[in-house]
Each structure stands twice: as C-alpha cells, then as structure tokens.
C-alpha cells in the first residue's frame, strides 16, 4: 500500500518532468533545435501564473489567471524564437544550445528581479484537498497533475498527427528547403511551436508550483527533464512523457529503498545506462547519414 502511494507520488512528479520534456521535444521535432531554457521557461511560467493568481499580486480567479499566464508565456515563447532564435537561423545546432543556455540565465535574472529570490507559494483553489480511494490517499495536486498531463498529451498528439499545421511542422522538420518550396512558412511555424512550448511549460510550472514552493532556481529541474527526454528518445512525444514518468518513479523508490544520496543520482545513472545500451533512447529514432 505504501509502495503504491510512493508510485502515485512519483507518477505525479513524473508528469511534471514529462511535461517539461514534452515542451523540449516539441521544439526538437519541429526544427531539431534544443531549448536548454525549457526548465527556466517553466519557472517563469509558474511565476507569471503566481503573479496573476496570488492575492498579493493581481488576485484573479484561478482558471482565468492560469489561462492568462499561458497566453503571456505563449507570447514569450513566440517572441523568444521570433526575435532571438530566428537570428541564428542557419547556424549549426550547437549555437542554439549555447544561446538557449544564456537565455535561461536571463530568464532566471528577470524572475529574480520581479519576484525576488525567496520561495513563494502559488495559491491554488484545491490546496490541501485529498481524495480517499480504497485505502489510498491521493492529493488533489497529484490528481490534477496526472489528469492535466494526460489531456495535454492527447491534445498535442492529435495536433501533430491530424491538423494541417501539425503536418506542415513535421514536413519542415524533415527538410526545411523543400518545405519552403511547398509554400510552408517555416520560420513562422517554428515560432508557433516555441509559443506552444511556452504554454506547455507554463502548465508544467503551475503543476510543479502547486506541489511546493517556487524560486528562480526551479529551472534546474530542467536538467532532469532533459534526462527524461533522452531516456524517451528525442523525437518521440510519448517517449518524452514516458521518460518523465520513469524518472518520477525511480526517485522515490531509490530514496526509500536505496542508500543515502542515491535518489539524487539514480535518474542520471539510469539515463546513462539507457544511453549506453540504446544510444538513441528507448523509443528511439534511427539517425543515419546517406553518403
């Protein structure tokens, strides 16, 4: 029973990691770009939501506040691509890695400048609520996290597989020059995906904030999310989520049953094992260069 309790908590954590990884993989799938600022975008999203919802600030009702935060962060994500990342269009992938790491630092500074560096709490309407379930106690935060993640993943999957924009994005991610020739607005689509990624990051941020406190260093969770994306395999949306869940579950199990200090390192050790045995991730894509 205690074990299942652990698992549920781990799954909820894993959903947060998975959502961050999802935002990360979204951008990778659309332009093979890596956004190392994804964790910090999540952090900023959480703070923006706090800014709209908390009584100390704007004090709006919860759902409208979150929606407003999503819109704002969608705009931030879009602008990041439109005004900064687009300027290095055509440079190798490494340049984007460096650029997004730097942007992450800047986002952290902005959050610290506006909201300070002491931990703050996001006021959610369901704080402290729990559900009882044949002996299991599930906190409302965990339940909301899991449900929201499932819904969001389904929406994104549908978007990519069935809508015109989704298909156009997939085309652009495979051959940009050809996509241009077909009339696909490649750069605009890229910015759109970054905006979408910002929204996903915000939701992840709100869910993470509901389970604890937030401060500008929250973005360091991003490193674990990258590990999740690697485990799942970079080109796979469900893989990203699966990777997040795996890490989310490994952590409490390692903490409970392993020696001291292992819980911090277990996710990374697992990731390294996956990389050694299956270098392209569990749901891997094959990459090959045709010569």
């Amino acid at each position, binding site marked *: 029973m205690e074990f299942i309790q652990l698992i549920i908590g781990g799954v909820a954590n894993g959903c947060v990691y998975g959502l961050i990884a999802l935002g990360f993989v979204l951008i*990778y799938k659309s*332009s*093979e770009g*890596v956004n190392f600022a994804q964790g910090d975008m999540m952090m900023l999203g959480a703070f923006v939501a706090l800014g709209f919802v908390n009584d100390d600030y704007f004090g709006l009702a919860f759902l409208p506040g979150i929606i407003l935060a999503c819109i704002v962060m969608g705009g931030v994500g879009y602008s990041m691509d439109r005004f*900064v990342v687009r*300027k*290095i*269009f*055509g*440079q*190798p*992938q*490494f*340049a984007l*890695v*460096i*650029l997004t*790491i*730097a*942007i992450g*630092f*800047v986002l*952290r*500074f902005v959050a*610290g*400048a506006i909201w300070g*560096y002491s931990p703050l709490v996001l006021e959610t309407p369901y704080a402290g609520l729990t559900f009882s379930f044949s002996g299991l106690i599930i906190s409302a935060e965990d339940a909301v996290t899991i449900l929201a993640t499932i819904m969001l993943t389904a929406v994104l999957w549908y978007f990519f597989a069935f809508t015109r924009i989704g298909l156009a994005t997939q085309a*652009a*991610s*495979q*051959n*940009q*020059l050809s996509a*241009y020739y077909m009339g696909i607005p490649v750069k605009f689509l890229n910015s759109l995906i970054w905006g979408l990624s910002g929204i996903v990051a915000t939701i992840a941020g709100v869910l993470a904030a509901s389970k604890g406190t937030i401060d500008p260093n929250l973005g360091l969770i991003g*490193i674990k999310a*990258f*590990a999740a*994306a*690697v485990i799942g395999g*970079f*080109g796979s949306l469900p893989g990203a989520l699966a990777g997040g869940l795996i890490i989310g579950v490994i952590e409490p199990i390692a903490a409970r049953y392993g020696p001291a*200090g292992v819980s*911090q*390192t277990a996710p*990374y*050790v697992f*990731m*390294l094992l996956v*990389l*050694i045995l299956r*270098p*392209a991730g569990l749901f891997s*894509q*094959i*990459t*090959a*260069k045709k*010569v």
Partner: protein
Amino acid sequence: MKVIFKKSYDRDIDLFRDRQTALRIGLLVLVLILVPFFASEYFLAEATNTLIWSLAGLGLMVLVGHTGQVSLGHAAFLAIGAYTDAALMNAGWPWLLAFLTAGAVTGVFGAIIAIPAIRMSGIYLAIATMALAVLVEEAVILAEPITGGVAGVFAPDIAIFGISFGRYDSLPNFYWLCLAVVVIVTFGYANLLRSATGRSFLAVRDSEISARALGINVSRTKTLAFGLSCAITGLAGGLMGHFFSFFNYEAFTIIISINLLLAVTIGGLGHIQGAFASAILITAVPQVLAIVRDGLSNIGVDLSGVPGLDTLVFSLILIGFIIYEPLGIYGRYLKIKAFWNLFPLSRRDMFRRQMTYLKTERMK
C-alpha cells in the same frame, strides 16, 4: 598586404608563420614573466586566476573546438584534478609528482568516460556530460575520506626544493609556476595541431565518415581526445585547488561547467587563442562590472542590491556574440586582421556564412 615567400616546407610546418610572429609571441611571454614586478598584489592574483582558467579553457578546447565533442560537464574533471592533487599532497607526496599524477588520473578517467561517450553525439553527448557533472558532484560529497565531504579540503602550500611557491606566501612564485605550466601545455597543444594526431582530431570533428574512409580509427581518436582534454583540465583543477587553498564541491558545480563551455565558445572555438580569450572573459567581466557599479553608485544609481548581475551581463554578452559573431572574440580578431591585411581591397561579404537548411538525418 603581407606576402610571405616560402622557400621550404618548413615554413608551413613551423609553429610560427614568420620571424615577426615568433618575436611577437616571445615579447608577450616576456611581458607575462615581468608582470609580478609592476603589478599590485590584487592584479597579480587576478592574472594567476586568468592563467588557470586559460588552462581549463585549453583542456575543453581540445575536445569541443578541435574534436567536435560537446562537454557540458568539464568542471567534473577540474574537481577530480583538484581533489587528487590535494589528497596526494596531504598524503605527503611532493607537489610535482602529485600534480602530474592528478593530470594522469583525470586523463585516464576521461578515457574511461570516452568508452560510452564515443557512441553518443551531439545533444545526447551534451546531456550525458551534464549528467556526469551532477554525478561527480554527488560522488565528491559521498567520498568524504578523500574529499572532506561537504566541508572540503585544504590544499597544502607548494614547495619545491625548499623554495616556497605558496599562493599566499609568495604569490609571484605561484604565478610563475602557473605561467610555466600554461606555456608548456600550449606548446604541446600547438605541436599537436600541426601533426598527424591533431589532423585526425580535426577530421573527426568535420566529417567522421571521411575520417573512417581515410583510415582514421574514429573511436581511438575520440578516446585520445577525451584523455588529453581531461588530463589538461585535471592539471588546471590541480592549480585551481592551490589557488583557492581551501575548496569544496561548490567550486565545481554544473554552473561552472556551463560557464566554461559558454566562455570557450565566445572565446573562439577551434583556436588556441580562443581559450585565452575565454579566460580573460571569465575573470574580466566581474571586475569590469564592479568598476561600473562603483561608477554608477557615484552618480546615485545603486546596483549593489541586485544579485545575479554578473551572470546577466555574461549571458547578454554571450547572446550578442552568438547572434552577431558566432566565431567568437578571436574569430572577430581574425576578421579584422584580414580586413586590414587586404585594405582597401577586402570584400564586404568575405566571411559570409552559408546557411545550412535543416535536412534531417532522423529516419523514422
């Protein structure tokens, strides 16, 4: 425009293009040797810090700039070098032996890391090295007997043949020691680049497929690159430990790794000089910022309460460079030099980069 009339292959094989360049470098080294005679104690300490960071930059440059393998976790190797050096000296070993062993141990560690790392590339390698950095941070805390756990260790003062090279006792001596190490390593690095080994590194960086077709054992080359890179970084770590005198795991966090990579990139990837530019950037930005802050507070603007300003400025500089000068500080210097060499005949788009449109190599 300078025309060099080459009369033998040696002109191309030599380290320096012509006598003037050799003289200029010689002059630079001479000036560096004379620094302790006319610099304040504070400036001398900063100069020593810059030298040590150049060494770290050189180590990372071998791997990233010349072999194309991304490492976001190089502070881990600084840590291994620092702790090994301190531990051996605390066990009674003489400095030179401890120092070289620290470098060798870190190099071997790097070669072991290479075994899985060889099979990864690009973003996977970057994230794997990040994970490595986090793991080493944890391992350092857990290995208390050697590393002093959370508390840290004390690196004993260096003394060779009775002469003190301690960082606080005789800073000039310590400075000259670091300078000597940097000069020797740079010499080896430059030799590497003009030889067959260095060319094989460049081949692996630019086209692994061609490299294989030319008979280069890519796996062995990458392992060698990792080993050399980590060895040099380990040496830098050893010196860093003595510079701090007392250090713990917080000196080698993942943020340090990231900062090192960022700095080396803006310094100028693929050039030895880029490593030196990166070190100057790392040590100069906080100093310049402090001066600016003082200046601003004189006119009433108080920025002292704003934390994280150093990192912000560093990041903004970075973003500026990535967007407008991806070749880095040394790359910009080369462009300016080329402009003046060809003046007034240089063409405006001489360094225009070809855009690479994404053509995915993913096949599923």
